[in-house]
């Protein structure tokens, strides 16, 4: 073998790029699991094309999977990559700017034939992997297709199926580079192709071929050592945001002894929650694919009226359609969880890209004075906890709750030191019982000290009552046009939601001192990048703190105080400045907006520069 070096590294960023057909997402996911199982901390960023299968070989068809793994804490998929694996010319062209100078390129030479070069729009006669234009990098070209076919010659598989396992060759090679076991992948393949043993055999063969290529090739190649991370002790699994959301919902239903009714209409990037939930009917989960978003939210309201936890999910355009019905739920004072997995907007916008631009819609996007609780997940595994919390608030405070996630959280994977069911906080619905004295009337809108009404569900004898969207008299719930009652009810619904703040934790700083020169205040999926930026800056001796807001309405009671204990507050958002509006209005503090509206996450580098520019 010809090992160039045997470098040690704290962390490595690998970007796999190829045609949607090349199985890039699977390769990335498998290596993620493998290296996570090995004990690395990881963070991933899958980045698909908008088309189902854009024409093969075109730039539009490039599918990417970025993986950041290491022996240190990893909070983001990394700003730029150390290793770039490209299956064809388009992939190289689309991704080369993501590669560090001097980084390694592993290129499938077969993907650089004239056809592919043309499709990638390289000028005639130009071939980047032969014309030396990549001199600045460590270029390794391998004819993966040929290797794969050789490995499977005589396997009796057709070329179509043979070529499908190209990605296993790459995976095998990468496993060699980082000294990772092939077993997790082999197990996966055995599970995946249960019914087709010949495919198990073939893929495993190619996997080994890739690994052995590393051992045997003459091409000089670096081999790296990336130690296991010092993560808190415990049992871990890898999880994406949409998985976390699905599991969080099932867990909340279990712990509250309610049945989960999940009504939705498919939309990117929320659909995978439906796909996941529909696999778990043995938990009593009922998933309902409605005819549209309006039917989704209103059927969820019907289910909540019946004593279930009604949940509905969509992304921006679909949420817009639900806003009228959310108003009804506010009037009915029933539990309802509305999930918005945000994507690039406005309108259809950039469906497969990520953005945080639906916050104001969540807070204000309804007719009339129509307060709902709003909370946002920060990371993939935080989606589990946060949606669980959304259910708790909805059920215990009898109110709609909007849960905000986004495309980046939804699809990104990270290790999760998962909780046990027993350790999850309790959730206690308060059902109305018929304890009326003779002649006493049931008060559907009678309230407790939290201003919360009881849940009187059909089937309960003697509590028959009617609810609806017209203004109602407090207590009786009868329709009322009384002017004072209307104002009273508006204020009551407002206070009911405001008082949730008494039942949620105060805002803590995620890292850094609780006061000082600069607080970076984030919400949602900017968490990882902000955390990395602040950590690295503090290492450099820069004094900066990070706080991340989960509760967007009501805001944590101490948030104003926290903000005011810093000279400056920087608010990075993947939108045109939304949380900053809310805080300026709420606290009259001139927070500094920092916005990126490109459908892709902040990099730690961008944030560090911005922070420095403020502090110098």
């Amino acid at each position, binding site marked *: 073998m010809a090992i160039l070096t045997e470098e040690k590294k704290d962390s490595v960023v690998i970007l796999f790029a190829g045609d949607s057909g090349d199985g890039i997402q699977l390769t990335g996911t498998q290596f993620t*699991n493998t290296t*996570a199982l*090995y*004990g690395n901390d990881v963070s991933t960023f899958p980045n698909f094309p908008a088309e189902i299968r854009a024409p093969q070989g075109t730039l539009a068809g490039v599918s990417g999977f970025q993986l950041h793994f290491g022996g240190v804490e990893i909070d983001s998929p990394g700003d730029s990559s150390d290793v770039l694996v490209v299956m064809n010319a388009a992939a190289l062209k689309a991704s080369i700017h993501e590669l560090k100078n001097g980084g390694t390129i592993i290129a499938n030479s077969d993907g650089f034939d004239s056809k592919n070069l043309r499709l990638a729009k390289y000028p005639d006669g130009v071939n980047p992997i032969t014309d030396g234009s990549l001199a600045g990098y460590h270029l390794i070209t391998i004819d993966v297709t040929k290797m794969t076919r050789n490995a499977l010659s005589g396997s009796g598989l057709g070329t179509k199926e043979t070529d499908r396992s190209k990605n296993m060759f790459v995976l095998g090679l990468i496993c060699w580079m980082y000294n990772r076991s092939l077993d997790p992948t082999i197990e996966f393949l055995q*599970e995946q192709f249960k019914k087709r043993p010949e495919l198990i055999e073939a893929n495993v063969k190619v996997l080994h071929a890739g690994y052995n290529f590393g051992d045997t090739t003459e091409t000089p190649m670096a081999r790296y050592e990336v130690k*296991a*991370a010092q*993560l808190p*002790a415990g*049992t*871990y*699994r*890898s999880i994406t945001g949409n998985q976390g959301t699905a*599991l969080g919902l*099932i867990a909340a239903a*279990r712990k509250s002894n309610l*049945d989960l*009714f999940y*009504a939705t209409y498919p939309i990117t990037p929320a659909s995978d929650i439906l796909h996941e939930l529909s696999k*778990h*009917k*043995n*938990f*009593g*989960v*009922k998933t*309902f694919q*409605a*005819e549209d978003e*309006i*039917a989704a939210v*209103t*059927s969820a*309201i*019907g*289910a909540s*009226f*019946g*004593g*279930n936890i009604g949940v509905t999910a969509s992304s921006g355009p679909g949420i817009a359609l639900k806003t*009228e*019905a959310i108003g009804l739920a506010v009037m009915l004072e029933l539990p309802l969880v509305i999930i918005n997995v945000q994507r690039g907007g406005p309108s259809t916008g950039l469906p497969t890209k990520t953005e945080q631009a639906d916050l104001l819609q969540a807070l204000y996007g309804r007719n009339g004075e129509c307060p709902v609780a709003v909370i946002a997940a920060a990371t993939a595994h935080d989606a589990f906890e946060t949606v669980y919390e959304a259910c708790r608030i909805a059920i215990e405070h009898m109110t709609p709750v909007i849960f905000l996630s986004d495309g980046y959280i939804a699809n990104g994977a990270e290790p999760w030191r*998962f909780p*046990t*069911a027993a350790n999850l906080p309790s959730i206690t619905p308060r059902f109305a019982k018929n304890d009326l004295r*003779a002649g006493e*009337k049931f008060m559907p809108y009678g309230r407790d000290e939290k201003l919360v009404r009881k849940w009187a569900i*059909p*089937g*309960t*004898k*003697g509590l*028959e009552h*009617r*609810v*609806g*969207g*017209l203004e109602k008299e407090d207590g009786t719930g*009868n*329709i009322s046009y009384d002017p004072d009652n209307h104002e009273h009810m508006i204020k009551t619904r407002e206070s009911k939601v405001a008082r949730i703040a008494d039942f949620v934790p105060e805002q803590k700083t995620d890292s850094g001192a609780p006061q000082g020169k600069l607080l970076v205040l984030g919400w949602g999926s900017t968490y990882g990048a902000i955390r990395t930026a602040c950590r690295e800056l503090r290492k450099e001796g820069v004094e900066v703190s990070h706080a991340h807001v989960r509760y967007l309405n009501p805001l944590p009671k101490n948030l104003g105080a926290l903000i005011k204990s810093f000279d400056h507050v920087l608010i990075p958002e993947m939108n045109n400045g939304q949380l900053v509006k809310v805080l300026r209005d709420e606290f009259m503090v001139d927070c500094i907006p920092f916005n990126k509206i490109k459908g892709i996450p902040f990099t730690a580098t961008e944030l560090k520069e911005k922070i420095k520019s403020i502090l110098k």
Partner: protein
Amino acid sequence: MDQTTETQKLTAKDFVTDQEVRWCPGCGDYSILKQVQSVMPELGLKREEIVFISGIGCSSRFPYYMETYGMHSIHGRATAVATGLKATRPDLSVWIITGDGDSLSIGGNHLIHLLRRNLDVNILLFNNEIYGLTKGQYSPTSRPGQVSKSSPMGVIDHPFNPLALCLGASGTFIARSMDRDPVHLRNILLRSHKHKGTSLVEIYQNCNVFNDGAFEIYTEKATRKNETLFLENAKPLIFGDNNNLGIRLDGFTPRVVNLSEVSANDLWIHDDRDLGKATLLVRFFEDPAKEGHLPRPFGVFYEEDRSCYEDLMEKQVRLAKTQKGEGDLDALIRGKNTWEIN
């Protein structure tokens, strides 16, 4: 709410609420309310097992007047709200109250999807061929040329044939009745309750303020016998002043024939289980002004047994539990691949 103990049989009175009924004097809704209240005790259900869900409209005020559980939801969505309720609470008897605007205009999509999914609920469609609550605009069932607040020069929209639409949407129970015929209405209500699946009952309802007399010819002595056709299973289609007229199929076209010329045996025999007959029968929808037009049928046009969405849903849940066992939350959370760090 008085605490009638369900031991003593319920009466119509037990379904009256303490809210004063707020429809215009003379509105057809009153008589429908009365019939529904009088039918309820015959269903052998407890009040708490019954839920009335409506959208928005004059008719949709209905739930406030029924001493059961109820929801006055939002415009056009009662069918969708009911879908979520019935899918999760098959034990309840769910009644949907909706108007021609509520169900056929803004609510059209949920209506046709409910019909195809066939949840076991009852839809009472109050058709007054007008928007009552918003004070008199035309609706999707208003007649061509009809003058209304929003059509001063007459309606130019071709109206829906509601039953043809509902049958086209694969409805499993299609019927028509009217506010002015209490006995018929009660019978139809009972049958719609008996039907396992979505029952669609169109009820002609007079809005005496904005569309008075829309259905006069079907309700007034002078005309009704010649203009209405009451459907009864296994009976020939006979109508007319002294049952002197009948319907016969000539090729694919139904024609009115005189019983003096045609024997009853050659007439169309009603069979509400025959989809072919039903598809033609719902087309008896011509303008009564038209020469030689067919009479307007009342009764049950079609009934079909088809499994209900909520049952299939429950079945999959049960099947999943038998196949995978009752879900284990810890196993779910931990997933397939885990690793230890210590």
